[in-house]
C-alpha cells in the first residue's frame, strides 16, 4: 500500500521523523453553558421592574494550549476527569470547532481547511475511543467495519509519486521484457518510492506463462521470437484489495484473519479494542489519537493491547497522542508527557524528566496519589484537598493555586513557614466550608468564645500569627463563629490568597531539563528564579 501522502491534502508536507507533525498554538475551546435562544437571558429582580440582561457564561474546557507532536513519537496527555483532555483531542481533529487558536497538521492550518480538503486530511488522523463496545456497530460484521474508512476515502488508490517495477524469476530460455502498470503499488508495498512486483515466468506444455506472487496482480505473456513480453497489471477489484488488507490488518493487531465474518459481540473487550485499532490503521494514518483506549480493560488484557500498540507504532511509523488518567500507563507508553489541569497544560517534559524530576506541584500530587503495587512503598501521601474548581470561573493566575500545597506566601507579611502553612490551611478551609468550619458555624449551643478558641486550636495550634495578618485571622474567626463565613472568606481571600504571586501572574516558565529532552515546561511560579 502507498504510504506517502496523497494529492488530496494540498500543501501538506510529510515531515521527517522527529520533526513536528502537529503544532498547536493557543488553542481554546469554550462551551456556552446556557444553550438555546432564551438561555442567556436572566432577570435582575432588584429594581421595581425586572430588567432582563443577556449574559452568557462560558465553560473554558480548553484554554490556551500550546504544544507540538513530533512524527513517530507518543505524546502522553494526562489529567483528571473534567480537565479537558477529551475536548482537546476532539478539537485537534476538528471534530468540534475550536473557539480560538491554531492547529497545524503537516504545515496546513486545520481552521483554513474546509470541506473536501478536511475530509481528505482526516484520512491521516484517526481516533480510538475508550469504550470499544459503543464505537463498533453491533449489526455490522468486523470485516466491513474495518473496511468502511477505506470505502469512505475511496481507497485503495495508486500513489502517482511511486514508480512500479517487477522482479522476474525467469525459468525459461526466453529473454523476458516486462512492463508494469503504474497502479500496482496498490497491491504491493512500496519501499523508497518504488513498488516491486515479484513475477515468476515458467514454461509449461501450453507455452510460457507468468504468475505474479500477489493474488491481486495478474500477468499476461506475449511471445515474440526468442523474447517474451510480460505485462503486470492489477487484476483484482478495489473491493478485493480492501478485503485482503482487512485480513492482513486483523493479523497485525493480533486477531485471527478468519474472524472477518464475525460480529463485534462475539469478541471480548480487549479484542474489540484491537478491532478499533485495525479500523484506525486501515487508511494508513500518520497520527492516531488514543482517548483512554485501555481504561475499560483488565490489567492483563491492557498489557497485551499496550504491547500491540507499541509494535504497530514501530511497524507503521505512527505518531500517537495517548490520553489517559493513569500515570502508570503513560509512563509505559509515552515518550513525552503533558499534564493538564483545568483546561491548561501545566507541565510538559520528556517522560523520564517528568516522572523523576517533576517541577509542578500538581504533577507531584498526581504522582504521589497513585497507589504503587507494593505494600512496602510506604511513602506518606498528602492527598490534595478539595475538588477541581469550576472551569466557568477558573482561579486567576495559576489555576492550581486554590489547591496547591506550595502556594507562595504574599511578600507583604513576613510569614515563617509554619505560619504560612497554618494561614493557608485556614483560608482554604473557610473557602471550602470544611467540616470544622461548618460545625463551628452551625453550633448554637456553645458560646462564641469557646467556638473561637476551638477553631484557633484546630488551625493555629502551634503557631501564633501576629501583626496585620493576625488581625485579619482574628476577624475571620469571629465572622465564622457569627455565622457569616462569606465575610470571613472574602477577608481571607483578599488579605492572603489574592496577594500571592500565584494569583496575580500567569506562570509560564521553560526550564533546563536535567534528565533528557530539550525543554521542560513547568508553569509554576516556584521556578521564577530558574527559568531561562
Amino acid at each position, binding site marked *: 500500500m502507498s504510504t506517502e501522502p496523497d494529492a488530496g491534502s494540498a500543501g501538506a508536507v510529510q515531515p521527517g521523523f522527529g520533526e513536528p507533525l502537529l503544532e498547536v498554538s493557543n488553542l481554546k475551546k469554550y462551551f456556552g453553558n446556557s444553550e438555546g435562544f432564551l438561555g442567556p437571558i436572566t432577570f435582575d429582580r432588584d429594581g421595581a421592574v425586572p430588567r432582563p440582561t443577556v449574559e452568557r457564561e462560558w465553560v473554558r474546557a480548553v484554554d490556551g494550549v500550546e504544544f507540538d507532536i513530533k512524527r513517530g513519537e507518543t505524546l502522553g496527555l494526562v489529567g483528571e476527569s473534567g480537565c479537558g483532555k477529551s475536548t482537546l483531542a476532539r478539537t485537534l481533529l476538528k471534530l468540534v470547532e475550536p473557539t480560538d487558536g491554531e492547529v497545524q497538521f503537516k504545515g496546513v492550518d486545520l481552521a483554513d481547511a474546509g470541506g473536501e480538503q478536511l475530509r481528505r486530511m482526516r484520512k491521516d488522523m484517526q481516533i480510538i475511543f475508550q469504550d470499544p463496545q459503543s464505537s463498533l456497530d453491533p449489526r455490522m460484521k468486523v470485516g466491513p467495519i474495518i473496511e468502511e474508512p477505506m470505502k469512505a476515502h475511496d481507497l485503495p488508490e495508486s500513489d502517482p509519486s511511486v514508480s512500479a517495477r517487477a522482479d522476474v524469476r525467469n525459468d525459461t530460455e526466453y529473454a523476458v521484457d516486462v512492463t508494469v502498470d503504474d497502479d500496482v503499488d496498490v497491491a504491493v508495498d512500496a519501499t523508497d518510492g518504488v513498488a516491486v512486483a515479484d513475477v515468476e515466468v515458467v514454461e509449461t506444455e501450453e507455452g510460457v506463462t507468468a504468475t505474479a506472487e500477489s493474488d491481486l496482480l495478474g500477468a499476461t505473456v506475449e511471445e515474440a521470437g526468442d523474447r517474451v513480453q510480460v505485462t503486470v497489471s492489477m487484476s483484482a477489484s478495489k473491493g478485493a484489495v480492501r478485503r485482503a488488507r482487512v485480513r492482513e490488518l486483523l493479523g497485525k493487531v493480533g486477531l485471527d484473519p478468519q474472524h472477518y465474518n464475525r460480529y463485534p459481540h462475539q469478541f471480548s473487550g*480487549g479484542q474489540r479494542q484491537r478491532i478499533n485499532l485495525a479500523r484506525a490503521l486501515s487508511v494508513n494514518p500518520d497520527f492516531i489519537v488514543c482517548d483512554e483506549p485501555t481504561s475499560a480493560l483488565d490489567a*492483563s*488484557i491492557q498489557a497485551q493491547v499496550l504491547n500491540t500498540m507499541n509494535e504497530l507504532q514501530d511497524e507503521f511509523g505512527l505518531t500517537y497522542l495517548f490520553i489517559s488518567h493513569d500515570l502508570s500507563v503513560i509512563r509505559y507508553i509515552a515518550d513525552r508527557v503533558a499534564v493538564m489541569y483545568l483546561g491548561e497544560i501545566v507541565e510538559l517534559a520528556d517522560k523520564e524528566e517528568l516522572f523523576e524530576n517533576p517541577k509542578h506541584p500538581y504533577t507531584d500530587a498526581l504522582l504521589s496519589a497513585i497507589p504503587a*503495587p507494593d505494600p512496602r512503598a510506604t511513602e506518606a*501521601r498528602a492527598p490534595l484537598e478539595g*475538588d477541581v474548581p469550576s472551569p466557568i470561573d477558573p482561579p486567576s493566575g495559576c489555576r492550581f493555586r486554590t489547591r496547591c500545597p506550595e502556594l507562595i506566601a504574599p511578600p507583604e507579611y513576613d510569614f515563617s513557614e509554619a505560619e504560612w502553612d497554618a494561614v493557608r490551611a485556614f483560608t482554604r478551609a473557610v473557602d471550602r466550608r470544611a467540616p470544622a468550619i*461548618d460545625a463551628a458555624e452551625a453550633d448554637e449551643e456553645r458560646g462564641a468564645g469557646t467556638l473561637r478558641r476551638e477553631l484557633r486550636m484546630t488551625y493555629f495550634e502551634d503557631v501564633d500569627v501576629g501583626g496585620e495578618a493576625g488581625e485579619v485571622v482574628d476577624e475571620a474567626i469571629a465572622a465564622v463563629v457569627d455565622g457569616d463565613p462569606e465575610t470571613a472568606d472574602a477577608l481571607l481571600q483578599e488579605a492572603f490568597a489574592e496577594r500571592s504571586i500565584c494569583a496575580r501572574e500567569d506562570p509560564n516558565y521553560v526550564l533546563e531539563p536535567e534528565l533528557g529532552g530539550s525543554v521542560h515546561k513547568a508553569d509554576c511560579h516556584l521556578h521564577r528564579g530558574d527559568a531561562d
Partner: protein
Amino acid sequence: MSTHETILEVEDLKTQFFTEEGVVRAVDGIDFDVRRGEIVGLVGESGAGKSVAVQSILRLVEEPGAIVGGEIRYKDDLLFGLKASADDPQERTEREEMLSRTEMRTQIRGREIAIIFQDPMESLNPVYTVGSQIEEFIALNREVPGDQAREIAMDTLRDVGIPEVESRYDDYPHQFSGGMRQRVLIAMALACEPDLIVADEPTTALDVTVEAQILNLVDDLQARYDTSLVWVTHDMGVVAEICDRVNVMYLGEIVEQAPADDLFHDTKHPYTSKLLASLPRPDRTVGELDSIGGVMPEAINPPSGCRFHSRCPEAREVCAEVHPDERPSAEAGSHHTVACFRDDAFDVGYWDSPPIETEASGGFAASLTAEEGESG
C-alpha cells in the same frame, strides 16, 4: 485490631447462575475469613467472581442465580448453611438456624454488614435529596426519631469530609461530584456503626487524587471505629495500599491467600505473579509489559484441572488433569495458602510431568476467546 476474633467465616461457598446456555459456576468453592478490625482484599480480573462472592455473603444474589453450597457465618449467626434433607439424602435443604430473608434485612444488612458499591450514582436515588436518603436509612436502622436521625446524618456527613453540610444537605445526588457521592455512601455505611463493611470496587470510578482522599478517609475511619472491611478490587495498587490480607480470585476460585506483604514479595501462584508483572509501574520505567496470554475462560465451562493452566506459562500435563485445592504453602507456612502444584505442599509429580503448550508459552489456540495474547 484488638481481639483478632473472626467475625466472618466463608466456607466452600458455591454460587451458580442457571442460564439457558448452562450453569455458570461464578463462585466455585471459596474459603476465607475476616477478623475484627482487618481489611481483607478480594482481588481479581473481571469475571473472576469477586462481586458475586460478596453479594452471596449478604444474600443479595438474585434469579437466575443461587447459592448452592457452603456455609457463611457472621459472628453467632448463620447467614447461609445447608443440611441433608431427611427424606432424600441427595437433596439438601436450608438449616433451621439459618437467618430468614426478613432477618437478613432487619438484623444484618445495614446494621451489621454494610455495603458500598462502585457506582455511587446508582446507589443513590436521583429524585430524593442526599440528606433525606441518609436520614431515612438511619431512622429505619437505628430506630431513632427524625430530628435525631437528621443530627446523626449531619455529623456523619461531616465525619467523611463533606463541606457545607447545612446547605448541601438538601441537594440532590447529581449536584455532588463523584468523589463527594462516594463519601456520602461511606457516610451511609458508617451511619449505623456496622462491624463489617463490604466495599465493592468503591474507588474504581474515581480519579487518582480523589481515590487517594477516599483511601485516606477509609484508613482514618477504620482506625477510629475498628470496623472490618472486605475490599473488592481489581487494582493491585489499592490492595498494596490498604489491605492486611489478600485473597486472589481466578475464575470462581481463590488461588492464593496471604498477608499483603507476602503476596507481593513472596508470591506463590503463577497467576498472581503474572498479574503483578503485567502492571505498568508508576515508579519506574519498564521496557515491555509481561502480559498474560489469552483471556479468562467462561465460567460455564471452566478448564479441567487447574483453571489457570490454559494461560499458565508453567503448566505441565498434570495441571490439566488434576485440580489443585488450596493448601498452606510448604515453604511460607500456614498463613499463606496456594493452589498450585509447584508448591511442595502438593505431591502429584508436577516436576516429573512434561510441560504442555499453552497460550502463554506460544501455542495458538484457534478458539475465538483464546488467542488474545498472541501478539502480546
